[in-house]
């Protein structure tokens, strides 16, 4: 089990730990995120990155930050899971990439960028992955409507007579 007080001693007291069911979460300020993740990878044995995802807290009650990026980590040997949560904000939500730690982070970061517009500094190939290249919105942000803004109707019509 990872010891939170040891982490706090190393990375400052802004680090906080919360638990829900069996999920243990460490909330970390953005500027220390990479140092913490790097420490977890190299020193604490979290050699497996389960997932990177983000949540847009625009409509969340009493939320103070816009985006939360969640790194789900796993220690393969001990079977221990840990979730590191980092808050980032508009206008330029940016985090350092963790591609240099886990190569599996490549596409996960690209997806977070595509869906939320959070950029990962240092990522070798940060392009849109799921949406078309011409897309300019970030669909999973809460201010983007479910039915889109008419992108799905913008195509030429081919009729039977002219095909």
């Amino acid at each position, binding site marked *: 089990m990872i010891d939170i007080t040891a982490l706090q001693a190393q990375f400052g007291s802004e680090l906080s730990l919360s638990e*829900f*069911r069996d*999920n243990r*979460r460490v909330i970390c300020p953005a500027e220390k995120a990479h140092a913490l993740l790097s420490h977890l990878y190299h020193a604490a044995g979290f*050699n*497996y*990155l*389960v*997932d990177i*995802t983000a*949540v*847009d807290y625009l*409509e*969340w*009650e009493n939320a103070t930050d816009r985006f939360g990026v*969640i790194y*789900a980590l796993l220690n*393969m040997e001990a*079977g221990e*899971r840990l*979730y590191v949560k980092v808050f980032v904000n508009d206008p330029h939500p940016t985090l350092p990439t963790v*591609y*240099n*730690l*886990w*190569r*599996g982070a*490549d*596409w*996960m970061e690209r*997806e977070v960028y595509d*869906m939320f517009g959070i950029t990962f500094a240092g990522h*070798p*190939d940060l392009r*849109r*992955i*799921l*949406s*078309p290249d011409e897309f300019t919105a970030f*669909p*999973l942000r809460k201010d*983007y409507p*479910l039915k889109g803004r008419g992108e799905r109707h913008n195509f030429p019509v081919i009729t039977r007579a002219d095909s």
Partner: protein
Amino acid sequence: MPLTLADLEATDAPDKEYLWTLNFGPQHPATHTTLRLILTLDGEKVINAIPHIGYLHSGFEKLAEHLDFNQYVTIVDRMNYLSPLANEIAWHHAVEKLMGIELTPRCKYLRTLLSELMRIQDHLLNVGTSALDLGAFTAFLYCFTMRERIYDIVEFASGQRFHTSYTRVGGVLFDVNLEWVNKVREFVRDFPKTHAETHRLLTRNRIFIDRIKGVGVLTKEDAINFSCAGPVARASGVVRDLRKDEPYLAYGDLDFKVCCSQGGDCYARYLVRMQEMAESLKIIEQTLENLPAGPVNVEVDGGSRAVLPAKPAVYRSIEGLIQHFEVIMPNRGFETPKEEIYAAVEAPNGELGFYIASNGTKTAYRARTRPPSYIHFAVFPHLIRGHMLSDVVAILGSLNIIAAELDR
């Protein structure tokens, strides 16, 4: 294990005149569904591959923010459509963990049984179509015959042969009866024959082995570093199976083995899948013969307010009717903790997890899927480098990329 960007730089193809670019997909028979590769070729040798995905991106996660925990199961179905029930079980596993619902023993066993049936269904199609892509048509037909039997079984239980939408928060839609149990028994009796036939057709088939052995080798370190899970990781020697490591449902009570291999190539992945089918059959047998009696759904009173009451109770008692409306009506609904949770199960393709952020209502604020196909396809350029053009379909087949799960 290089952990620097040097690894990527080394892959940049030298700018030589004779290199040519081939577009593979998005509509191609070997992709099964829709994905696209831009291959850089030196003659027939693949120098580099750039995957382009998103040709089936349909906004699953956005829909999750607008449908409640029971309704979203119909969407989750359509994610990995080779094994729809496995997705449903994963989704409701996460929801029930969020809400703290403890399932009844009968439901646990039933879901275990169904998820193993789905594992067989998924692996059957994967083995069949990867053989089909390599030119072996017969195995495909044999596998599909057995898949139809599984379709019959789930149709008997749920009423739909494909997208069953069978699970609900705290239980399943209908209980199963003895006739269904006998149907599964027949399947358990007949399946080993097909399994053995497929083994005879493929496992020692010279042509099949020549096409896949030593192709697309993934080392153990890479498998872990690339976040692989499931059969892909286990074929590379990663001993990890959530059914054993974090037992959920009824897996803690059951006797089964985790199938691993050291090879890491396509053949190893094929063998792991074949072996897993045999193990799944063992689990099905055990759960079927030990299926506990009792209610299949969590009790409404004392248990959870989120559970749909049984139909007879809805029709014959006012309490049942009220509870039904409480769950169904859009302006009512149940309460959930204002929390975030990640929960995963071992789906046929690997670790299928859901990260749910709930703001207290019956609709998820955000539901993220951890899709195994997405993560496995990211490994593809790494695997194909240096192989022949014809190995593209072999590796694609062995990774079992499902576009709907890939793109969501």
